[in-house]
């Protein structure tokens, strides 16, 4: 007999037990039993109303702030692909590659809409997109919308950075069943985008900083953390914890047994993506006119 069993027994007699003990838990219970009955497209609305029920006016400000931060970055990503698809001078090959860039644009748009809806339902004003993005990053990438290779390389850095940005804020959403799960779900989709862009570059013959074909995951070695190999992207793959890190919570991965010896450094670095702090990410996107 444990506490859950006891509660379930009581619930048979007192249907309001969860509410009496913890109103938030009851609201979540309602939300998830409702989930199966509503269309997925209605989810953001349900999410908001569920929060209002659970927290009233006491919605944690950290959660709001992380959602606004996420929206700030999603606005930027969506506008990047929107502009790229509209750029007549950008030679995206028709067919599979054009379709992929359109798919990613639409995916980012859905993230924007999702976050806007959730924030609105929480009685917050969603941060607005900028009208002044500079995708050349102050002239660092002058051919961003005329050179397909440049465009894909910058897309890779942006997607990898997006993955790192979400990861860096996950701890602040600890225990938040609905928001953390949604944020992790977007985080995983950004990683799918990143892998797709990297694989497209590989198929187009692009090489990484190790003079090998670009990998779908972020490669690293003892002395290289930026597998894109473009110095302008050092910050995207560096930071407090760089992408060639192999020490995970005190466990040194290269000291562990692999096949035919210890796990090689390359695999140890690739197997874990690393976070970026909010300050690191905002400094990286500032040259693009994101704030």
């Amino acid at each position: 007999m444990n506490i859950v069993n006891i509660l379930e027994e009581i619930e048979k007699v007192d249907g309001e037990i969860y509410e009496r003990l913890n109103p938030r838990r009851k609201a979540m219970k309602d939300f998830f039993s409702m989930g199966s009955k509503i269309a997925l497209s209605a989810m953001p609305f349900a999410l908001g109303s569920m929060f209002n029920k659970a927290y009233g006016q006491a919605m944690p400000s950290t959660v709001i702030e992380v959602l606004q931060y996420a929206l700030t970055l999603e606005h930027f990503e969506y506008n990047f692909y929107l502009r790229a698809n509209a750029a007549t001078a950008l030679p995206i090959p028709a067919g599979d590659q054009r379709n992929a860039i359109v798919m990613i644009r639409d995916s980012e748009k859905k993230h924007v809409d999702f976050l806007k809806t959730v924030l609105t339902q929480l009685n917050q004003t969603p941060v607005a997109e900028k009208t002044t993005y500079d995708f050349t990053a102050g002239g660092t990438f002058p051919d961003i919308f005329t050179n397909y290779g440049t465009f894909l390389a910058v897309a890779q850095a942006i997607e990898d950075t997006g993955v790192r940005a979400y990861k860096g804020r996950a701890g602040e959403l600890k225990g938040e069943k609905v928001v953390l799960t949604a944020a992790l779900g977007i985080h995983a989709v950004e990683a799918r985008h990143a892998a797709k862009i990297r694989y497209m570059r590989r198929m187009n013959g692009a090489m990484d900083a190790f003079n090998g074909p670009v990998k779908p995951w972020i490669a690293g070695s003892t002395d290289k953390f930026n597998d894109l190999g473009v110095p302008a992207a050092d910050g995207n793959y560096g930071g407090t914890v760089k992408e060639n890190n192999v020490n995970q919570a005190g466990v040194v991965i290269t000291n562990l047994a692999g096949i035919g010896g210890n796990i090689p450094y390359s695999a140890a670095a690739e197997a874990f993506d690393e976070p970026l702090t909010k300050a690191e990410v905002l400094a990286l996107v500032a040259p693009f006119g994101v704030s």
Partner: protein
Amino acid sequence: MENSTIKNQEASLSAGEFLEKKVQRRSFLRYAGAGAAGVVLVAAGCKQSNYNPDDPENGFGPGISLGTGDVAILNYAYALEQLEAAFYTQVIATPFTGMTAVETSLLKDIRDHEIAHREFFKAAIAANGGTPIKNLTVDFSSINFSSRASVLGTAKAFEDLGVSAYDGAGYLLQNATFLLLAGKIVSVEARHAALIREMLETNSFLGDQVDSSSVNISRTPAQVLAIAAPFIKTKIDPSTIPA
């Protein structure tokens, strides 16, 4: 012949359908197997046997314990990484017919990532005062390792399952360090999933794994373990995973 047709059909199913189909088959086999075991005992003239009906290796009884609290979640992840690492180790040991050099290179990388994840959890659980679960016995009898469609279809299902598992269990973690580590691993699993999907079908990197807001689907530990069960002979007791 008929067998390979079934495998090809399975490769075209979504992750959930693919694995759930196997669950049904496994459930049947489990009952059939129970009958067979009984027959063997009877045939042996009810001689004293070492057969223990509660042995988790026999798929009966409550199963092995994952521990409690965050350790239970880490052991749950450790179980999934054991499954994935064992799978890719076999994939590289017995390459499917026509595996290209590029495919070998990418699949070998994935194998090494999964081994890194597996060994990391084993070390981290022990370092944090928990007891890592034993080495699981896997059951890959339903996979045709000589068939590209069977191998990549299974890889797709495992990777998509892994992503949904980490995403669905993140909120259960109480320790922020462990949550961050789950985040570090899940994005790599998502990269694997996207690649395997692209190897099977161009532009399927999201496919049916996202909802209408382009948010990756998530699954509860109970859902994940039920889907993985046909591939793991050792029975796992999910009851101590926090909810």
